[in-house]
């Protein structure tokens, strides 16, 4: 891709200074988001995916958190360097964010209208009456029935799905260039999940914005993403477009994630599982951080951290042994233990 990136994250490091020690939640992450595309960021909980997004918004709780190093280039500015005042003009205006918990993400003592109007009046030069009109308009766009009535209701009067729609309406009220969605559907029912994802896809088209979709759910990634960054232990371990990732995962971790979910379209009768769990960020292993769980780990993997290297055009992977994995795949073998039989 030769287009100019909307957001360019370079070697971002966000650390938390806790009593127990330094938590390297994000430890040297690179990715780009292009105009009009959806970048999916996937990984298990605790891999640092939420912290990268909060770093872009500069909303990392400080103390204990701090952006340690790196650049976040957005429209010719490095967001890690600009003043808090400048940053506030970007938040909610150029870059908006929606969160995992629609039930608790809205302030219970103000009406949904008040909360949307507040955002509009903050960033646009309009009076309250006009802002209210725009808020009702936004509620209509996100598919809330009877928006003229809903605008004066309190969050607790709405269902979870409706609240997430309100959050989206609020986030889009100032025409952002980038919408960061941090697990927006995780807390919702499956049917509602699909509706919300569909809504986000269609709004992306009509607004021409980019979306950064953070999720642990590969299903969500498949549905909305154009390109994907797989994160593990504070680092990007695989980075490519969505089709390539699903057809040809090159990192043993990605491979494990994919084969641990049942697929309806493939005749697979066994599921694999990645053994163990994510290492504590206080105590990362030496060498490749996946080495405590990787069935292919050997010699070098325990000594030296692999670089994020271009394995094929537009396909980066952080693994010493991705070529060996290729061979294993060709032979049709498995690398993980069976988790059980799928029938």
């Amino acid at each position, binding site marked *: 891709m030769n287009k100019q990136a909307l957001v360019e994250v370079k070697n971002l490091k966000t650390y938390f200074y806790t009593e127990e020690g330094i938590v390297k939640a994000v430890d040297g992450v690179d990715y780009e988001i292009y105009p009009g595309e959806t970048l999916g960021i996937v990984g298990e909980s605790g891999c640092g995916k939420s912290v990268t997004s909060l770093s872009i918004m500069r909303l990392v709780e400080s103390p204990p958190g701090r952006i340690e190093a790196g650049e976040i280039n957005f429209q010719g500015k490095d967001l890690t360097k600009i003043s808090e005042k400048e940053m506030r003009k*970007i938040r909610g*205006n150029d870059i908006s964010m929606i969160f995992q918990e629609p039930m608790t993400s809205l*302030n219970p003592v103000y009406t949904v209208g008040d909360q949307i109007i507040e955002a509009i009046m903050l960033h646009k030069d309009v009076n309250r009456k006009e802002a209210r009109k725009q808020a009702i308009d936004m509620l209509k766009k996100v598919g809330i029935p009877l928006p003229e009535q809903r605008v004066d209701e309190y969050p607790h009067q709405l269902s979870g799905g409706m609240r997430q729609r309100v959050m989206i309406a609020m986030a889009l009220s100032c025409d952002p260039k980038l919408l960061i969605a941090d697990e927006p559907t995780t807390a919702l029912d499956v049917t509602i999940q699909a509706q919300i994802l569909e809504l986000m896809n269609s709004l992306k088209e009509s607004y021409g914005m980019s979306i950064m979709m953070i999720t642990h759910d590969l299903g969500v990634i498949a549905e909305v993403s154009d390109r994907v960054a797989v994160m593990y232990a504070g680092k990007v371990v695989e980075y490519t477009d969505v089709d390539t990732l699903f057809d040809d995962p090159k990192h043993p971790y990605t491979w494990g994630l994919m084969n641990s979910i049942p697929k309806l379209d493939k005749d697979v009768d066994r599921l694999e599982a990645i053994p163990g769990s994510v290492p504590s960020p206080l105590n990362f292993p030496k060498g490749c951080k996946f080495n405590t769980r990787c069935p292919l780990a050997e010699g070098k993997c325990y000594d030296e951290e692999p670089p994020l290297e271009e394995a094929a055009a537009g396909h980066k992977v952080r693994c010493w042994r991705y070529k060996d994995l290729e061979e294993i795949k060709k032979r049709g073998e498995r690398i993980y233990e069976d988790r059980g039989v799928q029938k």
Partner: protein
Amino acid sequence: MIAYIARRLLILPIILFGVSMLIFSMIMMLGPYQRLSTYINDPAQLKGAEDIDQLVSKYGLNDPWYEQYGRWIGGVLKGDFGWSESAGAPVTKAIADRFPATLELALLSLVPVIFGGIILGVLSAVHHNKALDHTIRIFAVIGWSFPSFVFGLIVLMIFYGVLGWLPPGRLSNWATEIVRSADFVSYTGMYILDGILNFNFSIVLDAIRHLIAPVITISILWWAFILRITRSNMLETLKKDYIRTARAKGLADNIVVYKHAVRNALIPVVTVAGQMVLGLAGGLVIVESIFNIRGLGQFMANAAQQLDYPGVLGGALYFGFLLILINLFVDVSYAVIDPRIRLE
């Protein structure tokens, strides 16, 4: 909200009945002769020892307890609490005379408690674990540990004894004369308000001067109490998801804190307001007797010292009923503030 208030109102008579039973059962711990005093409205009624026995049977003080309760509560409902030896007047009159002084003191005490406590609590939470937070907390824990009677006496020793600034009592002698004179209309019995209504501002200033020390003494404990609760609620609220949402909108920190957090954090503070009012009422007993303020608290303290049973019981019943009503008001205002209850 209607269901919520209706429930409160339904419980109200049960609580009132319960409190009257509680007081009554304490009365019943006394012997019939001691109890007789609650039925005497004028010491002139007692002439000799033989009269007392007559009166005991006349008032049925050896009857079964429920008959006695019925008669007692009947009298209470008619406003007949008996004769207070310590005040030298019927209990009802003694209470009515002293109520304005207490109300004035209590209302003024709420100002530093609520504003000081809430503002410092918010500041402490916003500067969590920084120097300001630590300083405020140290003062709070000292304030919380300082017994009001010790604090009050020290204030009296320094600001009256040494400096002569803050005298005890309600007014200076010259002011008392004016207040008692025919020209001065006593609208409320609260001198600050009456002074304003009579356009006599020297009375207002004199009353304020006399109230500073008792107000500080009474509020020191509750100021710390409200501060502590505000602080912990604020800390909890600042971690809420909707605060992050507000920041993500691009709002400035001040607006996030004072518009989005404070209002949520204060809702639970309202629930402890009832508890605080109870405590303030208790504090009145100490402060009024230290600073010689002729109010309900001093009345209670004197009555207790002189074993004036009708005075003590009547005062307790009066305080109890008053506070139940205040708590009802607090509960209702809680419902009004919180839309989640209001719209249920």
